[in-house]
């Protein structure tokens, strides 16, 4: 009679039951679905369910289920993708742009499983397809931004060189400078060349003026820089979503395709990726009256009229102190109980901020939050892109001290602060991007191939299981049970972490199942060795587990470390592999060492004496 710690037995049983429960929704699978949320952020009511179901029935689009979730979003589930797409067009037409409609998928699991919040694990782009977003980069906007910066910097350079000018203005792809004194043209040219020696001056400019035109090469360079920066920013944003295995790639001249696999909340992804948020720091004009400017609709020279959150107008200086482009980091960091976003700028932004704050102590400075979204709206039966741009002063604060590249923005709610920090951190985009296309894409691995692969794995599994039983008899059965448990635990962990399973991920699982088989074989071979030298059955079992432990432990720790490094430093498919590798190793250590011992005790533990082990 051998004792086995009760708590270990309970642990194994509890983990097994929990894993089976969590993995269960995968047996039911998912259906294509629409997820709708109201633009005014109000919740859907049961009446809307009746209304939408009625509309779908009227159009003869069969829906599996229409319901409202806990967060007040409306879901409609369909058997086929075609129905889903037809329904989207129908509802979009009816709602007149009031709903944000996202193509997604919903679980077919029974309500009681969903009530537990259990969802099937999501499959990656290669296995199930997902969502494709095509962004168009406003490359012209990127050039315009560059020109604006030149304009601003020219003014500053000329001022610093004490050269008086009448006007510095952008027109076309050039910046024109008109000087007060034509005699200072050479001095002005020198000052500007000191700023940037690459500048080229148009030779045919009238006396007293300078024209700096961007060369074709400079424009091209700027545009491709903008696209590259956007790709990086989108990659960061997509990674910040926490969905594994996303693809971001350049498409055509100025487009970027983003592919996101089975996400739970597609509209949230579109919102976070689609919003272009950037900041501008500007000084408040302390002299002129903003109310006057609002009334006449004309802002005094050198200022611009903005609105604050509470609707009050405010006049800001035209010169931008720093923009989101110069932002290095932003994080939500409440200070003294008040929500605040801590901002870090690069050295150029920091220098400018230092200069401005030291010259304008105790004067107000404003933070302008600019957000741009483009949406496809149905108009006269055609899809039209509509830009929604929001420029809003989110805070006006008095400059209390001199600061440079490290400071805080206050005056937001906690939720706004968190989102602002998230958006800014994910990358302030140099050029505005807009969604020009949103589609559901099928898996790149064909359905037949998935079926064939699953079948092949099943056959390989059966052969492996049969071999284990023939070779190790009762212990082989134990190994088989433990291996199944191992796979169930991996699936459960994947579902819990909401990590999409892809082919590289399956490779990770295959590897860990391999090591789990290895762990069992190591233990059983050791038990056999002990039996051969004449040890008693229980002594052999205990020695087998103990001696095999150092090999299993070392090899699993090594592989786990490898998986961890691949996860930290890798991306895309490498990460997908690393995730399942790490999860699989945890599962395999647990099942091979704890699970299989518990089973052995369950089978042999009650007997007073064992004559022989069936191994």
């Amino acid at each position, binding site marked *: 009679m051998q004792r086995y710690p009760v708590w270990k037995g309970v642990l194994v049983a509890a983990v097994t039951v929990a894993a089976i429960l969590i993995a269960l929704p995968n047996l039911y699978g998912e259906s294509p679905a629409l997820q709708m949320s109201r633009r005014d952020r109000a919740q859907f009511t049961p009446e809307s369910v009746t209304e939408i179901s009625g509309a779908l029935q009227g159009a003869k689009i069969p829906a599996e289920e229409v319901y409202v979730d806990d967060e007040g979003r409306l879901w409609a589930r369909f058997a086929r993708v075609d129905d889903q797409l037809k329904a989207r067009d129908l509802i979009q037409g009816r709602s007149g742009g009031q709903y944000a409609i996202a193509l997604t998928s919903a679980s077919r699991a029974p309500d009681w499983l969903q009530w537990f919040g259990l969802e099937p694990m999501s499959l990656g782009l290669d296995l199930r397809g997902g969502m494709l977003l095509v962004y168009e980069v406003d490359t012209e906007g990127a050039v315009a931004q560059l020109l604006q910066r030149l304009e601003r910097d020219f003014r500053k350079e000329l001022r610093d060189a004490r050269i008086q000018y009448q006007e510095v203005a952008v027109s076309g792809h050039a910046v024109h400078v008109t000087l007060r004194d034509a005699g200072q043209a050479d001095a002005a040219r020198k000052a500007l060349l000191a700023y940037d020696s690459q500048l080229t001056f148009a030779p045919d400019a009238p006396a007293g003026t300078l024209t700096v035109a961007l060369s074709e090469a400079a424009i091209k360079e700027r545009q491709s820089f903008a696209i590259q920066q956007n790709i990086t920013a989108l990659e960061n944003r997509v990674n910040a979503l926490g969905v594994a295995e996303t693809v971001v790639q350049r*498409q055509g001249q100025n487009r970027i395709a983003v592919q996101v696999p089975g996400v739970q909340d597609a509209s949230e992804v579109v919102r976070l990726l689609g919003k272009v948020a950037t900041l501008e720091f500007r000084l408040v004009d302390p002299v002129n009256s903003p109310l006057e400017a609002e009334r006449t609709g004309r802002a005094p020279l050198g200022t611009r009229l903005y609105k604050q959150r509470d609707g009050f107008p405010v006049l800001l200086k035209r010169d931008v102190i720093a923009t989101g482009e110069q932002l290095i980091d932003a994080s939500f960091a409440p200070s003294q109980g008040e929500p605040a976003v801590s901002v870090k700028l690069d050295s150029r932004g920091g220098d400018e901020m230092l200069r401005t704050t030291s010259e304008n102590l105790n004067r107000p400075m404003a933070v302008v939050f600019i957000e741009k979204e483009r949406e496809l709206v149905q108009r006269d039966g055609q899809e039209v892109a509509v830009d929604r741009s929001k420029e809003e002063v989110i805070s006006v604060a008095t400059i209390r001290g001199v600061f440079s590249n490290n400071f805080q923005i206050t005056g937001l709610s906690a939720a706004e602060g968190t989102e602002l920090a998230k958006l800014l951190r994910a990358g302030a985009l140099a050029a505005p991007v807009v969604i020009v296309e949103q589609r559901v894409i099928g898996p790149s691995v064909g359905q037949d191939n998935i079926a064939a692969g699953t079948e092949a794995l099943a056959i390989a599994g059966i052969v492996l299981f049969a071999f284990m039983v023939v070779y190790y008899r009762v212990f082989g059965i134990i190994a088989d049970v433990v291996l199944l448990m191992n796979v169930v635990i991996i699936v459960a962990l994947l579902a819990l972490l909401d990590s999409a399973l892809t082919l590289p991920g399956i490779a*990770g699982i295959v590897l860990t199942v*391999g090591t789990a088989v290895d762990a069992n074989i190591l233990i059983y071979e050791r038990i056999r060795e002990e039996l051969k030298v004449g040890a008693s059955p229980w002594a052999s079992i205990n020695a087998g587990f103990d001696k095999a432990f150092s090999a299993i432990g070392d090899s699993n720790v090594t592989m786990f*470390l490898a998986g961890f490094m691949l996860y930290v430093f890798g991306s895309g498919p490498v990460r997908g592999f690393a995730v399942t590798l790490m999860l699989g190793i945890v599962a395999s250590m647990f099942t091979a060492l704890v699970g299989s011992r518990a089973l052995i005790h369950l089978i042999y533990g009650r007997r007073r004496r064992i004559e022989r082990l069936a191994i």
Partner: protein
Amino acid sequence: MVEFLKEIPTIRFMALRKYWYALSALVVAASIVLVLVRGLNLTVDFTGGVVLELGFSQPVDLEQVRGALAAGGVEDFQVRTYGTASELEVRLPPAGTGAAAEQADRVVAALKAVDSSVKLNRTESVGPQVSEQLAGQAANALLFTLLLVLIYIAFRFRWRFGVGSLVASLHDPIVAVGAIALLGIPFDLNVVAALLTILGYSVNDTVVIFDRIRERFRSMRKAEPAEVIDRAINETLARTIIVSGCALSSVIFLAVLGGETLRGFAVALAIGIVIGTYSSIYVAGAIALDLGASARDFMPPEKRGDVDDLP
């Protein structure tokens, strides 16, 4: 009891290691030359290429489309649905200037067999799915991973073993890549995953044998190092055969029955398993031996005590 090896064999693996070194060096060199000269059959994942969007009059069967494309002489394509079931996206490797239109024509011509009213909606170039930045990142990840494995094994065993495992874990993927180049297997992201799997498999195999070597060095202090390592390899031979056999049979099933997409992945794995098994026996252990592995590596630190002071 079913057993492959009734008695522990007494094969003198280490005696022949010079020959195996020569063979390994030759195969690694050949692999590198092969990759450099012949190159890898990189897929659209890495090279970028052309995307064709096609519209059909009705939902089409993807397998039929793949068959028609293959029959029409289109190579290295990827197909998936795009939006609805009657719209498809076909990805092709990059063509030379002017050849893109020709490529598109060939695809459309081939697909006429599936649906005579097939229409080409759009042709566009795409960048690689694996941007240079990502590829660099992956290479870094691999480097750090190998280093950490080296450090861990050096810490748990001794540095000699760390070096042995490092050489083995470089040896295996290199030879596997060589084999992939030789067989012309399309090199896509899944093959990358297979290479990582091979690496993991090789490390696992190596550590298991190292563990036995460590144990035997502790119990056979008087024996010659080569003898100890031979003994450890022989003792774990049954396990090595079973584990490699199981793994190999599984991936062979996958290669034969798993369909076109998984074939490259499975074949790469099969090659890797064979090489990994060989390298953990010959490369890892033998290098540790030649670097001077001995029982002293695993002796507990000598106790200094009062005993020494006694006469």
